[in-house]
């Protein structure tokens, strides 16, 4: 007995697929921006903060990097209400993704900060730049430029990881796929198409990061 693939049964659900892709794009966009902001703050704290702050940020990074994302998600969505913090599935998903990306990007950006030669900072000081100006123009920009490829890959990993948030019934692409296959029972076809959509999203996201990288960090 051989199985007949029936991809045409997916056509009536095109709208759901499109909506799922769009939700995943939005989820990723919000989490990436907030996550990278958190990572930049974390990296600055680990590099320039006092001892207590460095230890705290270090513990945050290690806890997040050594536990699975899905457990972090369950902890935030199911565990935090025990402490009186009630979150919708969407909020919990964004928070989990931001916390996750924040930890990884802290480590990546810190490596970039370490690669900035001291003389560069001193040159900035001798030009009379303020501390904030030095951080903005002399430190963070070239630091991000150095580690941009690693940072891009991490953001792609977080986007792919977002498929897991369907498990707390946050709506995105995998949630849409689960819904569709519960209607037409074409599990394999539905997940094959969904997988290709994720592949396209990953390739697209990489292009976007490449474009941003060239815009921001091109050598002039």
């Amino acid at each position: 007995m051989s199985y007949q693939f029936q991809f045409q049964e997916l056509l009536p659900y095109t709208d759901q697929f499109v909506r799922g892709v769009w939700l995943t794009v939005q989820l990723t966009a919000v989490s990436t921006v907030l996550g990278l902001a958190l990572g930049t703050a974390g990296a600055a704290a680990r590099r320039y903060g006092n001892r207590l702050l460095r230890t705290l940020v270090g513990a945050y990074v290690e806890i997040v990097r050594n536990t699975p994302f899905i457990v972090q998600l369950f902890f935030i969505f199911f565990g935090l209400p025990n402490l009186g913090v009630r979150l919708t599935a969407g909020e919990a998903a964004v928070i989990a993704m931001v916390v996750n990306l924040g930890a990884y990007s802290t480590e990546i950006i810190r490596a970039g900060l370490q690669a900035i030669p001291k003389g560069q900072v001193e040159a900035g000081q001798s030009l009379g730049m303020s501390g904030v100006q030095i951080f903005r123009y002399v430190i963070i920009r070239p630091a991000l430029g150095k580690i941009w490829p690693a940072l891009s890959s991490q953001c792609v990993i977080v986007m792919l990881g977002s498929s897991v948030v369907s498990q707390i019934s946050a709506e995105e692409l995998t949630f849409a796929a689960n819904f569709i296959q519960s209607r037409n029972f074409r599990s394999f076809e539905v997940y094959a198409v969904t997988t290709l959509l994720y592949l396209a999203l990953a390739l697209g996201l990489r292009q976007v990061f490449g474009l941003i990288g060239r815009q921001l960090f091109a050598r002039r």
Partner: protein
Amino acid sequence: MPEFTLWDIARNLLLAARWTVLLSLIAFAGGAVTGLLLTLARVSKYPLLRLLARGYIELFQGTPLLMQLFLAFFGLSLAGIEVSPWVAASLALTLWTSAFLAEIWRGCVEAIPKGQGEASASLGLSWLEAMRYVILPQALRIAIPPTVGFSVQVIKGTALASIIGFIELTKAGTMLNNATFQPFTVFSLVALMYFALCYPLSLYAHSLEAKLHAARRT
């Protein structure tokens, strides 16, 4: 309804953690074998082989592990093979691991100076012999730290097997949560156990890396 003490929860989670460890070992061993073949294909002299290996790696690195698990789970049953979560999870995690290991190892092989390969060729070694006796032993040395580091990702990856019904640490956590209604305690313990598995490996990878760089500096 039975009462669960903290020890009951911890004990059940510890029992389930055995399956996390076993699944990680299967995925890592299978992934290492497949990954080695992929690495050889990726650096081979045949363009088609290189292209296929590259496509494989792109596909598995560019799609969610969860989708790969679903496809293994539903795809195998279409092929007429009776699927247990064990088989589907082992297969998907093996393929996923092999793609990442191949990409890590390719970097290590390419880090070996080209002259080494040319020297082997001028000594009359075949490509495979050169790989076996000259290139891979040297690449192995620099490959160990990132490989140990990646094993942490494999352990964390096994958590997704819970979604296709494989009972390991995360699945046991959700089941205990449904029975006890103590999500904060249960998921804290689950996280703690993953941390206990992963953090030593992270530290070990870090120290191996530091040693390697120290050796190179002198």
